């Protein structure tokens, strides 16, 4: 049967199980949009292509399925770029489909021609420029396969307009032929035995739990390893959820804004078992002084990550689920009570400093708001965030018991991720309780997608931690630039009126006693709700490892008495 290239595209998307796509039409992808009407795929019309990219990304992170975003050529495609880079940095499987000018016009600076495969080369796992209809089916088949296997990542298919229109025989390529693409499976047995031996000999072991555990669905195997050999677990930002927050072995988040006892555990461990994490500078601090006493085992599917930032003693290259499954039979039961006693001592000191245990002093702190959201959602919500202080506080104070509930832009740190990602998450399961914990700055970068949320009738609760600042940058200015606040104050807008303009019920909260009532209002109101929390403007996220500093040299939370006296004198 002869089909147009655009029809072939949809035939293939349907076969890949695609149910929803996010995008905006334009001159160079109109045949794709026209053919779409015949297929059982729901299209979400976004207001800016960055939104489409983050939605597809949020969808992918929350479900493990491949997300799909569409854009036209030129500016449509370039608007995707931030979202593609964010998906790349966080290994998220997204297929991007862009329209391109007709093949005979390529290279001639035609209207809305941009070299999109060139631009996205370094921020995609792979990309395709399609000039003929008969190339489409194979490209789509391969793109989905590459996006979701191995170390997942974004794949872009740029389809010339003539290829969308041309008719050709449609043959679905059942078999994938990618001779150069062979993700590793599992580590050699002798290395697994060696790893088990290293674990057995260790007195102060520590698991570093990364995003790979969620991507590979290997978190249960990791938990089993931790419990069997009595090993504490430190999580990266994206590893959050790989172990329940309530598990006594769980030390919480590591790194720049990780808990002090967690970072101290890293610096004092004699064995690090790094699982699906890449020793990013935000988690290691100064590499020269990083984990100086520890032997290191690195389980990682991407060989180029091995020895990249930290030279390790034993790399186990393979899929985490396979490697851990194969490793577990060799791991013996053990106890590390002394090691835990030491960590708990550090932990007590942290707890004493923690703002969350402060009594109500009449001020509205972001940490308290987030803890209240946790209570009001029974700890069961899926949280997306922007980037900044609120993101770090969300990681610290919303206690995640399950994986795939904390969806945040880690590697790229893309402000504006929260609102669109939440809509993507909602499409994975419309009964899901989805909350955005956003910053006033981040929110404004993609707030246009409120219209998309309303148009889709999505029940998403948006809580803006409004400190009237680009707070994280302000904090760095306070700490490292002698409080010279350069271009970080944000004067508005009135988010309540803004919400109402979009038809979203909205409220402003300025006092601690109003918080629970507002959260009840959000829970009881069907559909989207916007809450504008006017939190303390100049709070800082603690602890903090200054960029490039030693991991153990944290700026600690001020002790309570010190804070109290500082307030008394001010």
């Amino acid at each position, binding site marked *: 049967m002869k089909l147009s290239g655009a029809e072939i595209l949809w035939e293939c998307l349907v076969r890949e199980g695609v149910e929803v796509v996010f995008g905006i039409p334009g001159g160079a992808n109109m045949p794709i949009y026209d053919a779409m009407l015949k297929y059982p795929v729901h299209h979400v019309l976004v207001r800016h292509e960055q939104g489409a990219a983050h939605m597809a990304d949020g969808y992918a992170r929350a479900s493990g399925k491949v997300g799909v975003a569409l854009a036209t050529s030129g500016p449509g495609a370039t608007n995707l770029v931030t979202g593609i880079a964010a998906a790349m940095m966080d290994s998220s499987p997204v297929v991007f489909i862009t329209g391109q000018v007709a093949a005979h016009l390529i290279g001639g600076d035609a209207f809305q021609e941009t070299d999109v495969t*060139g631009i996205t080369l370094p921020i995609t796992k792979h990309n395709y420029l399609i000039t003929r209809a008969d190339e489409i089916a194979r490209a789509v088949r391969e793109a989905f396969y590459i996006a979701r296997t191995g170390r997942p990542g974004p794949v872009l298919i740029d389809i010339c307009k003539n290829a969308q229109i041309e008719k050709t025989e449609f043959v679905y390529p059942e*078999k994938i032929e990618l001779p150069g693409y062979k993700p590793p499976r599992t580590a050699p047995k002798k290395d697994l035995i060696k790893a088990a031996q290293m674990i057995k000999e260790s007195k102060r072991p520590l698991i570093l739990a990364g995003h790979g555990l969620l991507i590979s669905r290997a978190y249960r195997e990791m938990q089993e390893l931790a419990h069997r050999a009595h090993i504490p677990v430190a999580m990266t930002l994206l590893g959050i959820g790989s172990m329940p927050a309530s598990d006594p072995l769980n030390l919480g988040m590591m790194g720049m804004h990780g808990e002090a006892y967690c970072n101290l555990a890293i610096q004092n461990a004699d064995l690090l078992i790094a699982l699906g994490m890449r020793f990013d500078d935000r988690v290691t601090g100064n590499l020269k002084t990083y984990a100086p006493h520890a032997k290191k085992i690195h389980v990682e599917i991407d060989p180029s990550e091995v020895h990249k930032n930290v030279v390790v003693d034993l790399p186990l290259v393979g899929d985490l689920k396979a490697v851990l499954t194969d490793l577990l039979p060799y791991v013996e039961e053990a106890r590390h009570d002394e090691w835990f006693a030491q960590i708990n001592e550090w932990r007590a000191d942290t707890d004493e400093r923690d703002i969350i245990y402060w009594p109500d002093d009449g001020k509205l702190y972001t940490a308290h708001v987030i803890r209240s959201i946790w209570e009001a959602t029974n700890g069961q919500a899926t949280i997306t965030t922007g980037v900044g202080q609120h993101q770090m506080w969300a990681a610290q104070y919303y206690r995640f018991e399950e994986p795939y509930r904390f969806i945040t832009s880690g590697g790229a740190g893309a402000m504006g991720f929260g609102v669109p990602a939440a809509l993507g998450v909602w499409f994975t399961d419309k009964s899901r309780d989805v909350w955005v914990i956003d910053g006033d700055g981040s929110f404004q970068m993609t707030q246009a997608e409120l219209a998309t949320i309303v148009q889709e009738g999505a029940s998403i609760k948006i809580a803006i931690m409004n400190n009237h600042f680009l707070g994280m940058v302000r904090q760095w200015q306070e700490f490292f630039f002698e409080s010279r606040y350069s271009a970080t104050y944000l004067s508005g807008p009135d988010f309540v009126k803004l919400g109402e303009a979009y038809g979203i019920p909205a409220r402003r909260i300025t006092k601690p006693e109003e918080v629970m009532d507002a959260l009840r209002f959000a829970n009881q109101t069907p559909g989207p709700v916007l809450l504008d929390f006017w939190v303390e403007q100049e709070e800082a996220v603690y602890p903090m490892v200054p960029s490039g500093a030693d991991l153990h040299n944290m700026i600690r939370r001020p002790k309570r008495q010190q804070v109290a006296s500082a307030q008394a004198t001010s």
Partner: protein
Amino acid sequence: MQHTLIAIVENKPGVLNRVASLFRRRNFNIESLNVGHTDRKDISRMTIVINSEEADARRVEANLYKLVNVLDVHDVTNQPAVIRDLALIKVKAGIDQRAEIANLASIFRGRIVDVAAESVIVEITGTEDKIESLVELLRPFGILEMVRTGQVAMLRGGYEPVRHTPGAGSNGFHPEEELEVD
């Protein structure tokens, strides 16, 4: 030190660009990069020479593996390999210098492939050292123009290619048994 890597790649549009872009993005410095056909129409072969620390050479290798169109990578540094470079050198030469130049060239198993009134072109194939020695000897005559292909390399018969990247090569899985997501 110098590292010489062989990359076997699919002969598809843009592959060279992908490799070159990788070097730029990861800040690897390449000394020379040679691309050419193989006995198979669908496969090309690259010889990549980089001047770097051991660790960086490993990173280049691992990153090359990540490219979907790269089929195999191996390292011929310090391996029993035939390594060759070809140079064309246009030398200033009147009638009186031709014989002397031809003589020098022949000592290095080079030869004159073009003669004009005021110049000759010498062709020489060999290792870098050999070519450089001849170039130094020809320099006094006046070198007008020169081009080199960059190194090409091939492991000698009877030796196994050396692959450093863990998990690369034999360990791959087939599409039919792809990872299930539950």
